[in-house]
Every structure is written in structure tokens, then in C-alpha cells.
């Protein structure tokens, strides 16, 4: 396996950071500012894409930036898994940028420059995490991401977002400092390295209880993955503007959490070590509990974004579950679920935001019949739901298929039932929304449309008394295009998952 | 008992400086008046100066000024017994320490004057009362 030294991954991380001063200085001219966002987005994406052929040919791209201690450097290294994650994040960044222009302008949000600046910082940290060569670098970008997201969650600046932002921080920063940091330093203390390698970094230094404690410290410490009981920041963080919820709380932030767990399981411990200690079962139980419980909670949520948030928590645990199976199909299914769920869930969030901007509605019970006025949105919503439930013809099917295969492969047939049960639950909490949207009867009462006083009614908003069923009234095109695109990609991934499968297999050193 | 007594007598200079130090420390901690505290501080410093002076001393030795009999170049020819002269170094060091303690005392006095001008008192409890009044207001 060849390792290429190249500055490209560093440039990818650097571009969004470098564009921030430009964004700030053009804060008075929103159009110029947004142009720069796209310039940065496309530059980033094309650089990421330019690395794809090398990765697919089996090489790695690496760059050591700062040697901070012997065996611990701030270093970037692109492998298949990181590449897949970077592709997701950078492509969705462009789509989300377009969407957020529509959303932020549609709602006349305040402090848009601050918003796009921290958004760029967050995406930079996400890509950095994707390209991290070792646990130290991963931790660094993980923390930057936590802090960059804080002002985004707190965006509205009112009492509710203050409480949410505080909870967000307590969970994310508290666990990463309190659990991950000591665990990481302990690893370094024992082995003298933090470099990811498929064989793991330990060679007989750990006892079984020690390994179990360390593993749990990591799994709970990366609280962005939303493993219960460290999940409640995610529903709270839904007070953020929808583009934040969409990109960060369905893709970037939470996926960095699970990505970190994937890295720790496959790169620090190594699959073989965990298998020999038989620790997979512990993780499986933890993640199964999260999968089922949060699905059940999702059923009872009436606020659409909160339902999506609980669904995210449950789906994230699928990924952890896939890792915990410690079998080839499980690893593949779990990792590719990062991709499949990303496109499915971001579509759903985009739809939620589009509905909110167009009608001001955010409770599911108010959305009956809305599908007839917003057909594209609800069609996309339907596709997104299928993706998350895991039904063909969406990519989600592929990942769930592999996960179920993995349970059979590793002989944990009981857990297959968990997966199936959860899929049913998913269907229960998503499909009625679509059904009611298209076929539900319209009954809108006055004064219910704006439950929260601090939300600003948009000038384009339809007065709540007149949704004329036949009249098509979608959100503006800047919001519609992204959600259609992600929905189509979600379908496309069902037919063409091969390139990503190859990346993942290369990332895990498995033969395709 | 006699051993302890002989220990005390043999190193009486140490005991003396310790007693003096403790007197000074007591005054600094327990006295209410800032000036008395200052005096305590001075006693404390002087105790250490005395300690240094005493460790340079030798029985039967004289001050370390070497007198050449023929003057001029004769010094080199003489045999000098270190035991005949007390050790000048600690004494010289103490000149510096005295300067330091005087300077500290001066600064502290100046501060006392400032405090007195502001509050018309140097009693610490009264000062505290006035300060807390001020912060409440």
C-alpha cells in the first residue's frame, strides 16, 4: 500500500477557514458573501474528488503538520473511510449552503454572517476529522467542531436556545474532556502511539476489564454519536435554524461522533482484539437499547424536527451496532450507513425546513393535507423516509441489508430481531406523516400556526386560514432544489453504491 | 533533659533568633494595629539578620581586615590563618538584607500613611468595617 505525501487534504481543511475572513469582510453584501461560500464549497469538493482515484487505487494520502510529541502528531491521512465521509460532508455542504440561503433569507434571520462563518468553520472541522491520521488529530477537530457549533445552536439568542446550547455544551464538551481525553492519554501512555491502524495499537497491554472500561469511555465520551444516556443534547439542539439541524445534526456533527467511534473500534482497538475479548456484545446491547428506546420516543413526538432528532439518535446507533458486530458485513453495513443515512436524513430535514418556511408549521399534527400544496417536498420526504427505514429503491436498503447479514454472519440472530423491530417503528413514525400529508383532511384552526412567539413570521407566509388544497405553494427554489437533489441521490445510491463500498473495504483493509 | 539543655546552650544563637522570629510573626498575625504589625515585621527580619551575623562569628577571631606590617606589597608574604578572622561574607550579605528590609519598611510605612489619610484609622477591624460599608453602598 502506497502512501503519497500531499498537501491536498490540508488545503481541503484550510479552505473553509481561509474563506471566513472574506465572508466577514463582505458581510454587508449578502450576494457577494454567498458567492464566496459557493466558491469555497466547490473548491473543497473538487479537491476532495481529485483525491478519489488515488484512494480507489489503494494508496493513502498523508501529511504531517506538527509533531507535538513523539508518536503523537497533528497529521492528516486520507483513507477510504475518511474519503467517503469527506465526500458526504463536502458535497452536502454545497447543497446545504444553497438551502440555507433560501432558509435564512426566507425567514429574515439575524446575524447571517456569523451564521455562515461558523458554518464554514464547522465544515472545516468535519473534514479535518474525516482526514485525521490519529486519535489526537481527531480529538482536535472534534473539539473545534463542538465549539464551532455552539454559536449555531445558540443562534436565536433567546432563553430557549440558551438552555439548549448549554445542554449541548455540557454533554459534548463534558464527555469529551471527562472521558475521551483521559482515555486517549491512557492509550498513549500504554502504547506510545495514537496512530490509527487496522491491527490496533495495543499488543497485549490490556486486560479484558481494562479494555472494556476504555472502550466504554470512548463510546460514551464521543457523545456526538448520541448513544443513550448521552443523547438528550440532540433533540435540544433542534432549536437551531434548520440548515444547522440538517447538515450538522444529521450529517456532520453526529456523524463525526460515530465516525470517531468507528475509528476507535477499527483503528485503536482493532477488530481482532475486541473479538478476542468478546466485547462486541456489550456494544451491541448498548446500541440496541438506544435503537429501540429512541425509536419509541420518536413515535410520541409531535414536533417534526424533534421526531427527526430521535430518529437520528436511533439510526446513529445502527452504525455503532454494525461496528459492534465485528464481522465484515457488519463493518461494511455500519460504515455505509453513515452515507445512506446522511442523504436520507438531510432530505427529511430539508423538507421540515421547507415546510416551516413556506407555512410556519413545525408540528406534525398541523401538516395534514399539506402534501397537496407542497407535492415536491412531500415526495422528497417520502423518499427520505424510505431511505431511513431502509426500503428499496433507496440506499438505506443496502446498509440495512448488510447489517442484517452481519448479524447472521456473527451468529447474533437475536439482534436481527432488534433491527427488524426498529425498521417497523421507523415506518410507523414516518409513513403516516406522508400519508396524512397527501390524503389527510385539511383542518386548520386559527392561532395554532405559530406556536412559538419568538419565531418571526416571514413576509411570504401564507395566512394560516387559506391553504387552498389544489394550489401548489412550495418553498422558494433555493430550498426546493437541494431537497430534490438529495432525494434523487438517495435513490441513486441504491443503484450505484459500488464506489463507496470499495472505499470502505479499502479503508478496512478487506478485499472487495 | 540535660542533653536538651546542653543542645540549647550550645546553639543558643539559633534559639534566640527563633524566639525573635516567633515574636515578630506573632505580632504580624495577632496585632490589630497596622503599625504594630509593621514593627513585628521588622523584628521578624531582624531575627534573620542576627542569625546570619551569628553564623559568621568564630570564637577568638577578629574582624577580617588584613594588616600588612610593612604596608604596600607585604600582604602577599604573610601567612593568613582563616581561623583568626570571622567570616565576612554573611555580614556583607546582611548589609544588603538590611537595605532590603529598610526599603520594605519604607514602602509599608508609606502605604500606612495612605491608608490613614483615607480612613483616619490604622486599626484593622475598623478598616474592614469601613471597606465593607463601602462595598455595600
Amino acid at each position: 500500500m502506497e502512501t503519497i505525501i500531499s498537501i491536498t487534504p490540508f488545503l481541503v481543511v484550510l479552505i473553509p477557514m481561509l474563506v471566513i475572513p472574506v465572508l466577514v469582510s463582505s458581510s454587508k453584501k449578502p450576494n457577494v458573501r454567498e458567492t464566496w461560500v459557493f466558491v469555497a464549497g466547490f473548491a473543497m469538493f473538487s479537491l476532495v474528488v481529485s483525491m478519489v482515484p488515488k484512494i480507489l487505487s489503494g494508496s493513502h494520502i498523508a501529511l504531517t503538520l506538527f509533531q507535538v510529541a513523539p508518536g503523537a502528531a497533528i497529521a492528516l491521512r486520507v483513507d477510504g473511510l475518511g474519503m467517503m465521509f469527506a465526500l458526504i460532508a463536502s458535497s452536502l455542504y454545497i447543497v446545504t449552503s444553497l438551502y440555507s440561503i433560501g432558509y435564512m433569507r426566507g425567514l429574515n434571520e439575524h446575524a447571517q454572517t456569523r451564521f455562515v462563518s461558523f458554518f464554514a468553520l464547522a465544515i472545516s472541522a468535519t473534514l479535518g476529522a474525516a482526514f485525521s491520521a490519529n486519535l489526537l488529530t481527531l480529538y482536535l477537530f472534534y473539539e473545534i467542531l463542538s465549539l464551532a457549533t455552539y454559536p449555531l445552536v445558540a443562534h436565536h439568542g433567546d432563553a430557549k436556545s440558551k438552555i439548549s446550547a448549554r445542554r449541548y455544551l455540557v454533554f459534548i464538551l463534558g464527555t469529551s474532556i471527562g472521558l475521551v481525553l483521559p482515555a486517549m492519554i491512557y492509550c498513549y501512555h500504554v502504547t506510545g502511539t495514537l496512530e490509527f491502524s487496522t491491527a490496533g495499537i495495543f499488543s497485549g497491554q490490556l486486560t479484558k476489564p481494562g479494555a472494556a472500561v476504555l472502550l466504554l469511555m470512548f463510546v460514551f465520551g464521543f457523545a456526538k454519536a448520541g448513544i443513550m444516556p448521552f443523547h438528550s443534547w440532540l433533540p435540544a439542539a433542534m432549536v437551531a435554524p434548520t440548515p444547522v439541524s440538517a447538515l450538522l445534526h444529521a450529517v456532520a456533527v453526529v456523524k463525526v461522533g460515530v465516525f470517531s467511534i468507528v475509528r476507535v473500534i477499527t483503528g485503536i482497538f482493532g477488530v481482532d482484539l475486541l473479538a478476542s475479548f468478546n466485547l462486541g456484545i456489550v456494544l451491541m446491547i448498548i446500541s440496541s437499547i438506544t435503537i429501540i428506546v429512541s425509536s419509541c420516543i420518536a413515535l410520541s413526538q409531535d414536533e417534526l424536527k424533534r421526531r427527526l432528532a430521535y430518529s437520528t439518535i436511533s439510526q446513529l446507533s445502527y452504525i455503532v451496532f454494525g461496528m459492534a458486530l465485528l464481522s465484515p458485513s457488519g463493518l461494511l453495513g455500519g460504515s455505509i450507513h453513515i452515507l445512506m443515512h446522511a442523504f436520507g436524513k438531510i432530505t427529511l430535514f430539508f423538507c421540515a425546513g421547507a415546510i416551516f418556511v413556506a407555512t410556519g408549521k413545525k408540528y406534525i399534527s398541523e401538516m395534514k393535507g399539506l402534501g397537496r400544496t407542497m407535492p415536491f417536498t412531500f415526495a422528497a420526504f417520502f423518499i427520505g423516509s424510505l431511505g431511513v427505514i431502509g426500503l428499496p429503491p433507496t440506499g438505506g436498503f443496502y446498509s440495512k441489508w448488510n447489517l442484517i447479514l452481519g448479524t447472521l454472519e456473527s451468529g447474533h440472530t437475536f439482534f436481527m430481531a432488534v433491527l427488524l423491530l426498529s425498521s417497523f417503528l421507523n415506518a410507523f413514525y414516518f409513513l403516516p406523516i406522508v400519508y396524512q400529508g397527501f390524503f389527510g383532511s385539511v383542518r386548520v384552526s386559527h392561532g395554532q400556526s405559530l406556536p412559538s412567539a419568538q419565531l418571526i413570521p416571514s413576509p411570504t407566509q401564507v395566512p394560516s386560514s387559506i391553504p387552498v388544497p389544489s394550489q401548489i405553494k412550495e418553498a422558494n427554489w433555493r430550498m426546493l432544489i437541494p431537497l430534490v437533489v438529495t432525494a434523487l441521490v438517495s435513490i441513486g445510491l441504491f443503484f450505484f453504491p459500488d464506489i463507496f463500498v470499495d472505499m470502505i473495504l479499502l479503508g478496512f483493509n478487506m478485499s472487495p | 533533659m540535660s542533653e536538651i539543655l546542653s543542645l540549647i546552650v550550645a546553639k543558643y544563637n539559633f534559639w534566640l533568633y527563633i524566639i525573635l522570629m516567633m515574636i515578630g510573626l506573632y505580632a504580624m498575625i495577632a496585632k490589630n494595629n497596622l503599625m504594630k504589625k509593621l514593627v513585628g515585621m521588622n523584628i521578624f527580619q531582624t531575627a534573620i539578620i542576627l542569625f546570619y551575623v551569628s553564623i559568621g562569628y568564630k570564637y577568638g577571631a577578629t574582624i577580617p581586615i588584613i594588616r600588612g606590617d610593612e604596608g604596600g606589597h607585604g600582604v602577599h608574604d604573610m601567612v593568613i590563618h582563616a581561623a583568626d578572622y570571622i567570616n565576612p561574607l554573611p555580614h556583607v550579605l546582611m548589609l544588603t538584607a538590611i537595605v532590603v528590609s529598610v526599603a520594605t519598611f519604607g514602602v509599608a510605612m508609606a502605604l500606612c500613611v495612605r491608608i490613614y489619610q483615607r480612613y483616619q484609622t490604622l486599626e484593622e477591624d475598623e478598616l474592614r468595617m469601613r471597606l465593607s460599608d463601602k462595598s455595600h453602598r
Partner: protein
Amino acid sequence: MNNMPAILVIAPLLGALISGLSAWIEKKFSYYIALTAMTISCFAALKVLGQVMASGTIEYRMAGWAPPMGIELRIDLLNAMVLLLIAAIALVNLMASFKSVEQDMPDRSSSFYAMYQLFVVGLLGLTATGDLFNLYVLIEITSLSSYTLIALGNRDRAPLAALNYIFIGVIGASFYLLGVGYLYIITGSLNMADVASILKGIQGSSAVLTGFILCILGIWIKMALFPLHVWLPNAYSYAPVAFARIVAPLMTKVMVYVMVRLMITVFGFDYIFETLNLADVVVWLAVAAILAGGFMALAQNDLKKMLAYIIVCEIGYMVGGAWLGNDTAMTGAILHILNDALMTFALFLAAGNIIYMKKRVEFQDMKGLFATMPWTMAGFVLAGLSIIGVPPTCGFFSKWYLLLGAFEAGAYHFAAALIISSLLCAVLFFKLFEIAFFETPDHSCDHAGNTSMNAGSMKSASMNGTSMKSAYLYDSHSHQPAKASSTADETCDGTNTAPDKAHGHHQVTVMAEAPLSMLAALGVAALSLVLTGLYSGAIVDNIIGPFLAL
């Protein structure tokens, strides 16, 4: 003969003299003389560090007298680093001080600059010296100048705070002097290297033990190790800002340096960790310092006081690291001298900027600061993150070495204390960030007048005339439509915008930032946090590692 080490110390000494005298001719001169002296000193420090790194330890004989009789400046990698740190912070702070001195004590500026330079002379001298008694004298020079400078601060409280500082400072210095006396009795020498070589043969002596304990106790008092810290919070928070900014980062850290110097160069690792059995006790003390400092900081509602208690907490880091008894932890402690000085400096610079604009820094005065002083707050956030220990700021990397050393020594209580204090600091700082981000200054809810962001700071900004006034980053408030009703009420409890009722568009948040010189200083300090963080590997490899290997 290379005289750089002497120039390093003497430049500010002469500068102090000339600054004081020049006040009779023209007051402004004293500032520029101080600036020149500090620049020379900083340059010399850079030069000295280069020399030491290139060709090893410099032994500079003052006036050519050979040690052990003569006084020697002995500069190795460790104190070369600390010297550069002192000189650089003194210079940068001086740049930022012009405005705040003008504001605080226009009539006494030249005496301030003279004393300021004397203070720096003391710090530089006690870092450079290789002589135990000389160290005492320089500690006292430093302390004396800091007593006077602190007394220049808050008119009501500073004199009393300074006087209490004198009492405790004198006790500390006297203990140290006494300890040196015992060492002198037993070794007959005052030169550090000389004393160290003699001590190797007589480690069991009780006089050495007494001397050691007295010296260390004296230094601990001076560095405010819990529970000997009581003088620090008052002294630092009532000092004039321009001085608090330098004494807070440097004084305690240089004392930690002195402790490390005594431990490594004079007494030696063998003596401390094998002959004595104090390490466990001291590490527990450090744990107590960390936790006590953190919790007491949590109880404060004044920024300066809170920062002062954070210093108490950080002292625990360094003392604990130094006494864990392995090279990794010692590396962490030494690295933390550097890092903590920079972090504290940046924090106090930010606090200084806020004080300059607002006069007070109780927490309620910080409301809405992100809108009015975004640059200052950016620096403040970075420094706060560094204290919490978020990579890539430098605070993370020293914590890294300290934690590693704690694991190596099996001192899990110390590791736990470090983690807990990180969390405490996170709570502390994010509490502040929340206040500065979410809350609106009280008078902006004024229904009657123009609902400008901060009338008070605007006034002072226009008074000073130099403040930058611009609206940026928060301009996008302009997109907020006028909400005809309930505007003012909502603004009070919620958003940090205050829409202009009259026009309904283009509400512009007025920035009232500190003068450019102060901002620039903060920028330099904040940048140095990230740079030292990223290059901490190089610092450890080239400076601390070789030093400890000797």
C-alpha cells in the same frame, strides 16, 4: 566577551532610572524610554536564547569576578526560555499600557514606568542569576516594585491589599533567606552549581533538609500555592490594570521557575525524590490547590477575582507536575510555565480592554460584550479555551504532558484533579460567554430613547476619540424586519439585538472596541497561544527535553 546576558538585565535598570528622571523634562519621554529599554531587553533575550540553543549554557561573570565568590548569571535552556517569555510579555504589555496608564493615573505615569521597569529587572535578574543570595535580593526587588505598583491601583482598597501582600511577601522572602542561611552553613557557598556539587556528598544532613524546606516554603508563599494564596486575589484584582496584566502572568510563574530551578539544579532529583519522601504530600497539596482554586473561582462574580483564583488553580498544575517525579510530568510543568503565562496574559489583556471601556468587570457588566467588543471577546474566548485545554491552543498540550506524567507516576488523583479542573474552567468560561452573548446590557431596554446597544460605552468611546467604531459581523441585524409590537419587551429577555423602532430598518450595533494598541497586544498574545500550542513539540524537543536530559 559577549555581554548579552548583562544587557538583558541592565537595559531596563538604566531605563528605570532615566524614565524616572526624564519626567522632569517631559512626561512622555518616560514611556518611550521604557519602550526602548524593553525592546533592547527583548532583543537580547532572543539573542541569548539563540546562543544557548547553539552553544550550550552561558556562564556570565558579573564584572569578571569568578564564582563561587563572584556573582554569576547562568543561563541554560530553561531560563533562556523564561527570560524570553518575561521580556516579550513585558514588551507587549508595555505597548498596551500607554492608554490604560493614561486613563488610570495620568499624573503618575512616569513613576509607573520606572517601577514597571524595575519590576521587570527583578524578574529577569532572578531568572538569570546563578547565585542563591542574589536570587533573594532580586526577589525582593521584584516584590518591592510590585508592592508600590499594586498600591497605585484602586484608591480605596489597593493600599490595604498591598500592605497585606507586603506582610506575607516578607514572610515568604524571609523564609527563603533563612533556608539559604542553612545551606550556607553547611556548604559555605552561595553559587548554585557549587552548592549542588557540595550537597551531593551530604544528602542526609538535617541542616540541608531544614534549608530545603524553608526555601521551598518561602517560594510557595511567593507563588501562592494553596493554602498560602490568600494574598493573591486581592492584590491582583485591585492593582492597576496595566500592572495586573504583567504581574498575574509572570510573578507566580517565575516563582514556579525558581522552585524548579532549586529542585533540579540545586538539590537534584535524587535528593528530592529518593532521600526525601515528600512527593506524595506535595502532590496532594497540588490536588487541593487545583480543586480549591477551581471552586473558589466558581464562586466569584468579578472577572478579575475569578482570573486570580484560576491562577491559584493553575499553580497547582505546575507544582503537582514538578513533584510527580518523572520527566514527562516535569516537562509538562515547565511547558505549563510558558503556556500559563501566555494564557493568563491574554486573559488579563482582554479583561484590561473591557475595563478600559467599561471601568468595571463584574459579570453583569459583561452583558452584550460580543456585540460591542467582538475582537476583545474573540481573544478572550481563545484564552479561555486554552485554559480549559481545548486543542490546538497551548493549554491542551501542557495538560497532555501533565496527564501523561500523572499516569506514568500512577498518580490518578492528580489526573482526576486535572480533568475536574478542566471541566470547572469550562463551566466558568462558558458562564461568561453566555452572559456576554445572550444577555443585553440593562439600559438597552430603555423604551424612551434611542435603543442603542450600549450608551455608556459609546460615550466613553467618543470621549477617547481613538476607539474604532464600526459595525460589522452583526450588521445582519439589519435584515430583521421591524416588529411593530412587542419589540422592546422581546429584546429585553431575548435576542441581543435592539431594533430601531423609528425607522424599522438598518439597526446597527455600535462597536465600542478598545484602542488599537490594546487590541494588537491581545491579538499577539492570542496568536501566541495557538502557535506555542502547535509548536509545543518543537519546544519540548529543543528546549525542555535537552534541559532535562542534562
